[in-house]
């Protein structure tokens, strides 16, 4: 049999190229509109800098090392907050999903706290915690805590009772039940929670830095605002977005890897 030539639109390499071209052209369009707006309205750079101004400021901040210094502080805070928030949420989520008594005792507070503006706690933490790095991690952890907790509880509650009975019939220990059944079963929901958590952690870290810090990208935004260095504010904003996107991408990669079985055909 001869190989039929596949139609161009089905070729995976053509498809990937098309996707890259699409992404690149939408970015180009965005920059063009931005530049056009600045020229048309003739904004001064301290009101709205053009892409060129921001790029130049980025190169300067990258060259003198200040951007890397602030970005790495924020990254540490984000990662610390993520690890702290997700591990406490996992632990509490497991206990709540397992113990009806604890659930009845604690759940009303969780529901109430979900509506609570956690970010408003940040100034209070300034009084309580001196170290700004640790304080910012805690703010980040607080911001992502409830959405992630809710996801984890939902994931663990969705475990099929028949699979639990099967595991019990094999005399699985509590730990085996968790690590071999509940964790993998809840994994898709947990990863979805982690994606939300990763972006929320960035927001939390910025808030933490806003209320009192002398380092980090949130601090840099405040600083640049005081100096009317608007291009630097944009540089910091884009770097924050890059961190959030990078983390989101990492979790997506992890997801692709861990849930690869779903794609087996």
């Amino acid at each position, binding site marked *: 049999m001869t190989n039929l030539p596949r139609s161009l639109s089905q070729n995976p390499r053509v498809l990937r190229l098309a996707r890259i071209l699409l992404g690149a052209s939408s970015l180009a369009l965005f920059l063009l509109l931005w530049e056009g707006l600045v020229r048309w309205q003739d904004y001064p750079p301290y009101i709205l800098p053009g892409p060129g101004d921001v790029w130049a400021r980025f190169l300067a901040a990258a060259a003198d090392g200040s951007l890397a210094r602030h970005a790495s502080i924020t990254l540490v805070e984000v990662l610390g907050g993520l690890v702290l928030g997700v591990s406490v949420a996992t632990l509490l989520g497991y206990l709540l999903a397992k113990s009806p008594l604890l659930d009845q005792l604690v759940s009303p507070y969780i529901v109430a706290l979900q509506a609570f503006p956690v970010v408003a706690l940040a100034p209070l933490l300034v009084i309580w915690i001196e170290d700004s790095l640790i304080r910012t991690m805690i703010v980040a952890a607080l911001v992502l805590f409830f959405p992630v907790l809710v996801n984890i509880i939902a994931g663990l509650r969705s475990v*099929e009772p028949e699979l639990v*009975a099967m*595991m019990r*019939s*094999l005399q699985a220990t509590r730990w085996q039940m968790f690590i*071999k059944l509940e964790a*993998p079963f809840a994994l898709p929901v947990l990863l979805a929670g982690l994606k939300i958590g990763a972006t929320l952690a960035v927001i939390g870290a910025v808030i933490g830095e806003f209320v009192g810090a002398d380092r980090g990208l949130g601090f840099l935004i405040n600083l640049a605002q005081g100096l009317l260095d608007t291009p630097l504010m944009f540089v910091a904003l884009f770097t924050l977005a890059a961190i959030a996107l990078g983390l989101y991408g990492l979790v997506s990669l992890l997801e692709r890897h861990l849930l690869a*079985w779903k794609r*087996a055909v």
Partner: protein
Amino acid sequence: MLLTLEHVSKSFGDPADPLHALQDISFQMRRGEFVCLVGPSGSGKSTLLRLIAGLLRPSSGQILLGDEPIRGPNPRVGIVFQASNLMPWRTVLDNVALPLELRGESKARRYEIARAQIALVALNGFEHHYPHQLSGGMQQRAAIARTLVQNPELMLLDEPFGALDALTREYLNQELLRIHRAENVTILMVTHAIHEAVWLADRVLVLSQRPGVLKADIPIPLPRPRTEALFTDSRYLTLVKQVRAHIDRPTVAGLSSKMP
């Protein structure tokens, strides 16, 4: 005797207003026996199997495995559920090896045993497939292999082929008889199908409508190995009729009382 039930009763729910699922069930099973359990829907067949598997405790009476009362799940008893209950994120090989993994066997050892059981249920070549890549019948065969891997003395099957089409069912029943012969395992199987029960079993137990009591214990003295030739055999047909006579017709009242 491998299995002894003495005056076993089970009720669910509020003790003030209990739902009696099973009442005063007593019977015994010899080693190597193949027993089928039939009865109308809601008569407590699954409940009885879960009691023997140690997943539920009887409300009264006792269940002995050999001379030992059953206090909980036990490696000597394996259960196959109506749904295959395979873990979708595990390959067939890892699903079948699960009982050994939980027992802490080394990877090499558990794969060796699992591969042998996979071959026994004729799934070789599918070791690295995921459950969603298998047909329903293949999934059930994997579930049976997973139970066999534990090397149980008593294997409980709860309508294992209930969701499959008639031809696949017939084929898998033949496979089950082959495994019963090859592994010399004792089998207690729940089924809705009377002709299937008679064809497979040494004895057929009949449960009544709720509360389930043991209505009949009918020996099936048909020679083994059983073949399709039996389907037209007059002794077989008489036995099917005999079992059918003991089964409560599902009444509208009986069915609606099952509704919560």
